[in-house]
Structures are given as structure tokens and as C-alpha cells.
């Protein structure tokens, strides 16, 4: 072989990667295994399963499973993502980026809802449910009428309005020339002024080294000394609380993962989509300050509902069956032992 030919072969091997000798590691993936995991959908429709769903069905599913975070009209509650509106706002000072105003492809909506939603219960929707929710999100964005049916047959025709408003990374062409100049090192400007201070906005988290130290000192000062007259306090007969079962509490903590996307508990807990749960067991219903309860929950609170273990068990087993119209869009905890564990955890974590 001539030296030139050798070089040419080497060059072509480098340009288009030629497979190295396989090591024979791993095993063949079966078509069934691939089918179970391969759920991705592309704009050209590759990966889209057969199915269909209409706007009205999507409305029902959305109201039940999505609206607690994304709002009834896709407006988003708290800092949860806004899904609808914002058309024409992309060059505003505060653009609203939604499916209708920003997302380039409808396939992305189907793919994302299917892979990651509902938050905390991913991959639980059927194909038809995902089609229906996707159709409803088009409706919320004024892209289709209320009688629209989205299916694997007409999916490719659906286009989102902002598809053309994306361009490839052009930093090299637009920015590099200006950002590769040798910068000034001396006498670069006659004077310098401060034009903005972070302290003006003051959004930095409170806790700093100094504050942490001050807090530690406070805590130390507040700690009762051994001589403190705690023993002199009048003895009060306290009803013996049921002994906490650490294993049950631990099991309950696991069950609580299902609740965590909406509820917090403990000293630092704050209202999220759902209210703070401190003191919920044996506490009055609908009693958390600054939380906007559903009408039926507010009414039950008014009527004096107390979350005894039996009431709470019934609610947790089937929230919507127990209280029609509750905002808690959670299907319920199926196993009774899980409910018992969850209640043990709620009791313990409140303390």
C-alpha cells in the first residue's frame, strides 16, 4: 500500500468514526424492552402512539389532575408554569412564555405531559388521556375550537404559532468578533459610578454567616440551664399519647412522598399548592391561615370537622369520594396500612 493511500484511509477513518472492535459487553435489548422505555416523540411524529382525545375530555382530566398547579385557565398558580396566553409578548419587557406564545412544536407538549406529568405521578396517563390534555392545552391557547379532536392521524397538521421564531446558536458570527478584541488595561475610563445596587432589591436569602452565628448565640442563651425551675411547674396530668412506632413513622414518611409535591410539614413548612400539615391529626379542618380552601372544605371547617384518625383515614383513602369538590386532586392512598403509617408520620413530623 502506498503511503498516500494509507494516509487517505486514516483520514477517512478519523472523519467518519468507524466502530472500534466491540468488546462483547452487555446483552441484546429485546423489542418489548425497548417499547416499554422508548416513549419519546419527535416533531415529525416519530414515536407518537395511536390514539385520540377531544377538548371536552381534556378539560375534565386537566381540571382534576393539572389545574391545582397550572390554574384552571392555564394561568399558573404561585410560581408554577403558565401554560396559556402571552401571545405577542415575546419582545415585551416581561415576556410570557407559554405553549401558545413560545413553544415551537406540539409534539413537545405530548412528549412532556406523557413523560413527566402529572407532577409526582409521572407516566400514569393513558395515550388517549395525553391526547385529550394536549387538545385541551391547544384550546386554552385559542388554537382550536371546543369540538376539536386530536389524534395520531391529524397530529402532524397541528402547528404552533411560534415555530419559525427560533434560530440556531449564532454567537460565533454575532458576538465573537467584538468579544475577541484585546481589552484596555490602563486609563480605561476617566471616572466610574455605581449605577445599581443589589441591596435596593434586597431579595438575597436572609441567612448569612453573621446571622447564623447570632442565631446560634440566641439559641444558646435561650436554652434552659439545668438549674432552671422546670421541676417547680405544677404537675399536670397529661393523657398518655399512643407510643410512637418508629418503623411505622418511617413507613409513613415514604408514603408522604406522594403528598410532597403539594404539601409541606415541619418547622420550616410553608403553604404550597396544599396547606401546611402541622397539627393536622386531631386538629380542626380548614384551619391553616392564608390558605384558600375549596368551598366544601371551608364549609366542613365551619361545621366543626375535626381530623380524627378515622375522618382523616376516610379522606386520604378517597379524597374526592369523601368530599366532593375538594381542591386536593389526589386519587387517594389505597392500602389501609399505608394510611395508618401516613397518619403516624403526620403526627410525628408535626412535633
Amino acid at each position, binding site marked *: 500500500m502506498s503511503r498516500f493511500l494509507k494516509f487517505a484511509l486514516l483520514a477517512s477513518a478519523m472523519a467518519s468514526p468507524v466502530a472500534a472492535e466491540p468488546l462483547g459487553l452487555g446483552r441484546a435489548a429485546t423489542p418489548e424492552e425497548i417499547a416499554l422505555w422508548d416513549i419519546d416523540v419527535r416533531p415529525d411524529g416519530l414515536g407518537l402512539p395511536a390514539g385520540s382525545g377531544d377538548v371536552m375530555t381534556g378539560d375534565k382530566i386537566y381540571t382534576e389532575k393539572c389545574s391545582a398547579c397550572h390554574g384552571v385557565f392555564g394561568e399558573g398558580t404561585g410560581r408554577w408554569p403558565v401554560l396559556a396566553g402571552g401571545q405577542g409578548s415575546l419582545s415585551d419587557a416581561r415576556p410570557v412564555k407559554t405553549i401558545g406564545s413560545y413553544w415551537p412544536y406540539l409534539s413537545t407538549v405530548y412528549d412532556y405531559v406523557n413523560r413527566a406529568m402529572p407532577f409526582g405521578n409521572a407516566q400514569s396517563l393513558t395515550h388517549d388521556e395525553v391526547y385529550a390534555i394536549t387538545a385541551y392545552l391547544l384550546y386554552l391557547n385559542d388554537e382550536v375550537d371546543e369540538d376539536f379532536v386530536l389524534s395520531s392521524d391529524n397530529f402532524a397538521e397541528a402547528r404552533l404559532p411560534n415555530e419559525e421564531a427560533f434560530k440556531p446558536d449564532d454567537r460565533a458570527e454575532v458576538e465573537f468578533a467584538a468579544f475577541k478584541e484585546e481589552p484596555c488595561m490602563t486609563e480605561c475610563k476617566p471616572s466610574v459610578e*455605581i449605577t445599581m445596587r443589589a441591596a435596593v432589591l434586597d431579595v438575597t436569602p436572609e441567612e448569612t454567616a453573621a446571622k447564623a452565628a447570632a442565631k446560634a448565640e440566641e439559641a444558646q442563651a435561650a436554652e434552659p440551664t439545668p438549674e432552671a425551675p422546670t421541676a417547680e411547674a405544677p404537675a399536670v396530668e397529661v393523657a398518655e399519647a399512643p407510643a410512637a412506632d418508629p418503623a411505622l413513622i418511617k413507613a409513613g414518611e415514604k408514603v408522604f412522598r406522594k403528598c410532597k409535591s403539594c404539601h409541606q410539614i415541619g418547622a420550616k413548612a410553608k403553604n404550597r399548592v396544599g396547606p401546611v400539615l402541622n397539627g393536622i391529626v386531631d386538629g380542626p379542618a380548614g384551619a391553616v391561615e392564608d390558605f384558600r380552601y375549596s368551598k366544601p372544605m371551608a364549609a366542613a371547617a365551619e361545621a366543626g370537622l375535626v381530623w380524627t384518625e378515622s375522618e382523616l383515614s376516610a379522606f386520604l383513602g378517597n379524597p374526592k369520594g369523601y368530599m366532593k369538590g375538594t381542591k386536593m386532586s389526589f386519587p387517594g392512598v389505597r392500602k389501609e396500612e399505608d394510611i395508618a403509617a401516613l397518619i403516624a408520620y403526620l403526627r410525628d413530623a408535626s412535633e
Partner: protein
Amino acid sequence: MTDKNQNGPSRRAFLTGAGAAAAGTLAGGASAQADPAIAIHPWMQELGDGVDAAPYGMPSPHEADVKRRTVEWLTADPVSSINFTPLHDLDGTITPNGLCFERHHSGVARVDPAQHRLMIHGLVDKPLVLTMEDLKRFPRQNHVYFLECAANSGMEWRGSQLNGCQFTHGMIHNVMYTGVPLRLVLEEAGIKPEGKWLLAEGADAAAMTRSIPMEKALDDCLVAFKMNGEALRPEQGYPVRLVVPGWEGNMWVKWLRRLEVGDQPWHHREETSKYTDLLADGVARRFTWEMDAKSVITSPSPQAPITHGPGPTVLTGLAWSGRGTIPRVDVTIDGGITWHEARMDGPSTPKALHRFYYDFEWDGKPLLLQSRAHDSTGYVQPTKNALREIRGENSIYHNNGIQTWAVDADGKAENVEIS
């Protein structure tokens, strides 16, 4: 006690008798008082913990303040949120594993490595399933790389907002990865000629996906299972993550479970709705993968004020580029009227953090501190205003503008912008 009593007077006698020259170097009055640290402390007398008191060692309790912190108002919920590396407390270039910032989209997946599989399929000759054990039989490599979230400094586009480099620049970490070149894993399955793109997917409840061009996948990406010598931390993708050197952190898919080879990109949520850069005219850039050259002074900074008063002062910071190394960093202490070349120290490898120092004599007057990175391609870190002129203020991502800290006469530092 007798020892102490005997030492006390003699020490004082030495100090007072040592003459005006020695006393003069101390602050007024200090010579009369004993330094309480010069004493017989409990740890000098009592026995400490034996070996194995902490089979997995932890930092001194005096370092309890060195920790990741979040900014609660940024996100709706802590399971889809971010916390920040305490850059102001660190030195050198390697980030300790427990301090590497976290970003999850559906919380930390609790993966059992025995039940974890990596599937490779799509446009390949032989679709494969690999166990963790299989992965560890491929030839492996070690590389130090920074991982920076594309949204690092994203809160600063409209002006100074957060007081601390932990919050303005802490979505970055730099560790040594041990892993298998992605090329070897893909070649084991055999890439078909039309396979130009790769979809990487995580095993978390967000099933995080990103499209990666095949050229990058075959260049320097790793399928990594160790960080700084030990197993990946759960929050960093245990048992296995993708390493995409120099490119935005979101692509470094954690809990990596699937690699699909295709002929075009997937345009999934994290590369359309998110991680695209909206410009002032309403058009958005997509596939802005590379991280531009950037630097920040980590001390002094708002969380690391100057506490020692005028005199010798160590200014230090970090610099990095997704396109190579950092041969040079310029530093100014007068708001950019005069710049000085900083002293680079420590290892310099491509797509990794670099450490710089500027040792100066502080006169006790207010300072305006900035650093400016130069990378090995000749790119010079721009000012925030230069970026805004081209991109507007709504990009969220890829803010690599020069950061300014204002230090007052007390040594306190603040995040500011200057003319």
C-alpha cells in the same frame, strides 16, 4: 492550674519587657492584654475521638456554615428547584462532593444500582442493555470538568439582584469524573451511518431528555460513575450520569438510563420551552450548548467581606471556559480604570475551573472589584452591558458578563453594577 498561673505572669513580663519596638506593631492597648488563644485548651489536654468515630468523615463543626443554599422564591417547589455551591468559602479548583450545587426537575431519584440499566437503541446495529457491572468493564478515563447550569447568573440580566457569589455564580461545580468514553458505549452497539443525533434520558420522574449531536457524543463525552474518586452522589445522578464537557449542565443527564440514536433532534421540553435564549426582538436562539468564558471574584465578595482591615489582602476567584483553558485573568480594584494580570495558580486543563489570585495592599478605601477571563480561543469575557446590547434582558441563560463587587471602607462587599 499551677502551670497556667506560672505561665501567665512570665508571658506578660516578656511582652511588656520586650521593648517599644515589639509593642508598637500591635494595636493600641493589645500589648497589655494576654491573647486568650495562647492558653492550655481542652483539646491540648483531653483525648480526642478514636479512629472510626466517623467512618465517613465530615468537616469540622466550625465549618457548619459552609453549605449549599437555595433561593426559595425562585421556584414553585423544592423538588423542582436549585441550590448553590458556596464558592465564597472554597479555594483551589475542586468542588467537594457534598457542596456541588443541585438542580432537580422531579427531586433526587432513589436508584438501586442493581436495578439500574442503560439501554442503547435506535439507529444502531445491535440494541443493547448494560448493567452497572457491564459499564465498569469498558476501558475508563479520568477528567476534571466544570459543570455550569445555563441559568447561572440568570437572575442578574436586569441588574444586580443577589448579594453573594454563591447566589450569582454558584450553579457551578468542578470535580474529577471517572467514566467510560461515550464513544465506546455507542460503538459497542454500532452507530448506523444516518445516526447523527443522540437522545439521553434520565431515570428520574422527570425522565429528563436532551438531544446531543453525534459529533459531540463521539468527541469527549463520558458515561461517568465516580466523582472525586467515590461513587456519584444521589443528587448528582447516582449510579451513572452523562458528562458533556464545556456544555450547559442540563445536558449532563443524571441517572442515565437510555441512549437513543436518531437522524434528527427531538426538540424536547428542555431544548425548546427551556434552555433557549429569547432575544430582544422576540426571536430565540436554540442549541446554545457551549458555555462562554466567565470568571468571578469569590473573595472578597458579599458573603466573604474583608475583616482584617487595611494591609496585605488576598483577592481570589475562579475562571472557566467551555471552549478550552484560561491562560489569563485580568483584575481591577478601581472599577475598571486600571487592570492587572492576576496570578493563575493550580492545574490548567480544558473545560475545568481555574483559580486566580491578586495579592495587594489595601489602603482601606472603598474598592470596585471586577475580574475578566481570557480563554484559549482568544475570547475575552464581556461586560454585562455588552451582552445586553446584543441579547436584550430576557435570555435567562448564558449570562457570562463581568461581575462587580463594591467593597466599602469597613470591608463589606455588595453586588453592584457600574458605569
